[in-house]
């Protein structure tokens, strides 16, 4: 369970990333976080594994106060939390399986890391993770030979390989085309159901968010303006989150006439 208690984040330059966020997320939820760019979506997600420090309030993950963690404890804590990035963040020159295996590195003795020696069990586990995202056949290909969608699935497999209880995904489908984006989202949904992993996704594609997530958080200027089940997201809610600007669906045709943008 993740619990935000009146959490705020102010960046050193004065920008307010989060303002008085109160949130409770149960194990196994599939949460989509929507909002404009710069609204604080990334900040919200990255505070959970403390890639970003909060400046106020309290953040509990499975009962641990995240801000109290230091050094080794923090790293041990992060082992349970997987993270997916917009730019995949894979080592392009390495093979797929080597990338998946890097998630075992933090638990390995230094000499094994140094020479890149992985045990048979680790390799099997990594291959199983690749199988779960249907990309087993590419295991020994180099990452730069893969398409964007395939690379994101490798990143997902890398995360699964660490057996996380939470997966944080920061714009995982933003650099993918709509069809591949849908496939990757369905992978997330399947993993969420089959393995009971909590998933938090930052997403710009509202239609994909509504299609797969069980709960939606709307965030605006660092404040949560909507928190509720997907079924209750209406056009008014979207107007509120996106400050009244019309939200084009990713699959809609956008016609530009002069300066007016119509979306059906």
């Amino acid at each position, binding site marked *: 369970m993740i619990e935000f208690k009146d959490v705020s984040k102010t960046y050193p330059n004065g920008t307010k990333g989060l303002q008085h966020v109160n949130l409770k997320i149960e194990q196994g939820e599939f949460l989509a976080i929507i909002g404009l760019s710069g609204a604080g979506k990334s900040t919200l997600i990255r505070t959970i594994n403390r890639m970003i420090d909060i400046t106020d309030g309290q953040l509990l993950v499975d009962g641990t106060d995240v801000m109290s963690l230091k050094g080794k404890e923090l790293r041990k804590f992060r082992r349970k939390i997987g993270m997916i990035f917009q730019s995949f963040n894979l080592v392009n020159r390495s093979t797929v*399986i080597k990338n998946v295996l890097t998630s075992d590195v933090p638990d390995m003795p230094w000499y094994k890391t140094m020479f890149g020696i992985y045990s*048979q069990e680790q*390799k*099997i586990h990594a*291959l*199983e993770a690749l*199988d779960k995202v249907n990309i*087993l*056949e590419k295991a*020994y290909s180099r990452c730069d030979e893969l398409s964007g969608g395939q690379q994101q699935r490798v990143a997902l497999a890398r995360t699964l390989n660490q057996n996380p209880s939470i997966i944080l995904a920061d714009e995982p489908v933003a650099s993918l085309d709509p069809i591949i984006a849908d496939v990757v989202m369905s992978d997330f949904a399947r993993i969420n159901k089959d393995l009971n992993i909590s998933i938090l996704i930052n997403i710009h594609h509202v239609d994909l968010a509504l299609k797969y997530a069980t709960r939606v958080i709307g965030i605006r200027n660092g404040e949560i303006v909507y928190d509720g089940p997907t079924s209750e997201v209406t056009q008014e809610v979207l107007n509120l989150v996106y400050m009244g600007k019309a939200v084009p669906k990713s699959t809609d045709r956008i016609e530009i006439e002069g300066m007016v943008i119509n979306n059906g």
Partner: protein
Amino acid sequence: MTTTVKENILEKLNSEPKNLWKRLLVTAIVVMLVIWGSTSLNYNGVTEKGATIAGSIIRGIVQPELATLFDFGPNGVPKLVLETMAIAVLGTIIGAILAIPISFLSATNIVPKPIAMVFRAFIMLIRTIPSLVWALVWVRVTGPGPFCGVVTQSVCSIGMISKMYVTAIENLDTGVLESLDALGCNTFEKIRCGVIPQLMASFISTAIYRFDINLKDATTLGIVGAGGIGFPLQEALGSGKWHRVGSFLLVLILVVLVFEWISNHIRNRLARGRS
């Protein structure tokens, strides 16, 4: 999670390309080479005075001999530094000018391949003979002194500068020449307006880069009597004036670093324009 491993995963696991042996072999070769290399490098230990020498030199760098640094006489540091720099300046300029015809004659897009090959062999020949050996040869012609350093560096610079010039010439954008042709320019006009502007910046940049190298090189040519700070430094080392050695080294480090900084600055400007 199931305890039995699925068939397809095992199959994939066994299909892993095995390059472990290759790596072990390469590592073994390198290790063997190093062991073989170390066999005759018998470490005789630090000489009795060795530690004192090292200590004194470092002390000399930290606390230089001011008398040496500000001695404006013929054996003082300012004169020697000026001489070293002068060798590098002239050597680079002469070398850079001599390299122009040679590099055009070894560019395959200017002259037929056989001619280019002959000149490339010439460049390679110049490059292979170490500058110190060149100095040993030239010293027989010019006699000892800084003039020998200038001649040596002029010749040695041709090698590397030509090699870089050739690359620049072979990367010439011929589209410009075509458009000048279309305007009705003659060969001279084409060279003046199409070739020189394209090559100028990279030629100057190469020459400045070479100046850095020559400056460093000029500090050692003195060892064979080709002028510069090298000979007094060697002499100070030979006669055990460690403090003096330290002072020389300090100046040498400063001069090289300052010119490296300046040349990086100018080359960045040449590459990116003034911004």
